[in-house]
């Protein structure tokens, strides 16, 4: 049965919820579970994880591990892998997770699969399921031999059992990072706070041109008394400022009503709005993944549907 090494991730001095989701995934495979916690002043976190299903928790402590660096993290995880010889190495698919995953896979010369939401053992390897083509398709991948996977945050429910494990120091020496951490800063916040709006109407790449936001989307916002949001490509193209962006690298919102117009529903967008109380999606592609999280779906050309909707709203309000 597969032996799994979980690489815990620390954020703001605490273990991320996503790391406890890894525990659930690892335990679901039914084999031996060991974990690794690395950082500075993380002994307590390791002890905590050892009581929450992390099994034997290796803890690597040091000044060199205070800030994340691909160089130091790769070196430590590599040593943990050499010590424990796991069949499967699990990280979370977070900015640090995907920054280190490829480098680590190259160092270890192992199969690597990112952003998976399901893992099963399969012969000498694993079957891993994930999205591809920005959410348009699912793929089941076969990985042979030792496998490294990053798991999509939220794909599993955090492990809630309390199993007694143990904590063991992993002594690592000679750690150095070629690049230097300077600081973490918050992007300047604008005045467009979507988190307080009751209704948000977001436009995506389907609007095709910046002027369509004024011509087509703005009237809908006005008719609904909604704030306007946007998907990332709209912001990347400079059509709307960053404070309009909804998603993992924008704002995470949960309004009473969210209307997605010409947005496909890539996972990074969904994590920003799927907690909304009611979701309406307008998209011409009946297979668009946004319809999976929507409560009401309108399959059609937004340039016809939205003006019709504005008209109907005006009439309804008299």
């Amino acid at each position, binding site marked *: 049965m597969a032996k799994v090494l979980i690489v815990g991730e620390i954020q703001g001095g605490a273990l991320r919820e996503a790391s406890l989701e890894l525990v659930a995934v690892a335990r679901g495979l039914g084999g031996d579970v060991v974990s690794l916690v690395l950082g500075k002043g993380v002994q307590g976190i390791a002890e905590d994880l050892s009581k929450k299903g992390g099994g034997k928790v290796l803890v690597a402590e040091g000044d060199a591990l205070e800030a*994340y660096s691909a160089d130091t993290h790769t070196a430590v995880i590599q040593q943990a892998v050499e010590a424990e010889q796991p069949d499967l190495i699990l990280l979370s698919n977070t*900015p640090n997770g995907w*920054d280190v995953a490829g480098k680590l*896979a190259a160092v270890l010369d192992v199969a690597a699969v*990112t952003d998976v939401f399901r893992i099963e053992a399969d012969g000498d390897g694993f079957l891993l399921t994930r999205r591809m083509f*920005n959410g348009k398709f699912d793929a*089941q991948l076969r990985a042979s031999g030792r496998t490294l996977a990053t798991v999509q945050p939220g794909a599993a429910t955090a492990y809630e059992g309390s199993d007694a494990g143990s904590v063991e120091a992993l002594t690592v020496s000679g750690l150095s*990072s070629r690049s230097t951490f300077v600081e973490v*800063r918050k992007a300047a916040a604008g005045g467009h706070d979507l988190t307080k709006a009751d209704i948000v109407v977001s436009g995506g790449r389907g609007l095709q041109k910046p002027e369509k936001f004024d011509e087509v989307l703005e009237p809908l916002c006005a008719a609904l008394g909604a704030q306007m949001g946007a998907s990332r490509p709209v912001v990347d193209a400079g059509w709307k400022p960053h404070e309009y962006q909804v998603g993992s690298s924008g704002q995470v919102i949960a309004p009473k009503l969210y209307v997605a117009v010409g947005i496909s529903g890539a996972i990074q967008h969904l994590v920003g709005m799927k907690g909304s109380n009611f979701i309406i999606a307008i998209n011409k592609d009946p297979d668009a993944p946004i319809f999976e999280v929507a409560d009401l*779906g309108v399959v059609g050309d937004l340039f016809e549907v939205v003006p019709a909707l504005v008209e109907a709203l005006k009439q309804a309000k008299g």
Partner: protein
Amino acid sequence: MKILVCLKQVPHQDARLEVAPGGTWIQDSNIKFDINDYDKYALELALRIKDAGEAEVVVASIGPDRATQALRTALGMGADRAVQVWDDAFAATDSLAIAKTLAAVAKEESFDLVVMGLMSDDANNSLTAPMLAQFLDLPHVTSVVKAELQDGKVEVERELEGGSLEVRSVPLPALLAVQTGINDVRYASLKGIMAAKKKPLAKKSLSDLGLDAGAVAPKVSIAKLYVPPKGEGAELVEGSPAEQASKVVAKIKELGLL
């Protein structure tokens, strides 16, 4: 200063995609292709460094014949030379093999900076860049949203979650994987496209790079590609736009939001 930009040709963002018979890849014989979106931003970053001083920009892609078009477009935008690598063994390969091959390309000369995309729009792996960095023994940064070249180093900002940015200083040579939106991507001008026809484009096989099919045998393969099963999903509203609109309004009323 010599800069390598690795770019992938992927289905055009507006292409209608379907799973091919066999169910392990998409039907790709009759669709439009384009340079991977993230890689356009990567190329633009390199071209801006070139515009600001002295730099030679080399673009490299592993892809079949059709990928020549992507490289020509990149040359039309201002890249100086192109390298295209193909072997049928790549048809069902993995990121590790792609990175090994790109490493062989990069090692044929010596680059001060390697720029790539954070992710390919088809595979969505986000693996190739850090893998290549390891094979080239370079420091790397992914999710780069700002990069400023200074004396012998590059100051970068890396996108974290929820609007946080990490500032890092990276000594050259280095590898950067850029996030979309880092700059405004230029179009190839007509003049550029004409000039591109005369720019060198080298086509290489695996053996030209000292590799064989065994060296790039994949550890990861696609067993099944499929349209995600419909779960609960949305209640779909049918009819003409006007009929659809009135049903949506009725729902919004029911929610008490009108």
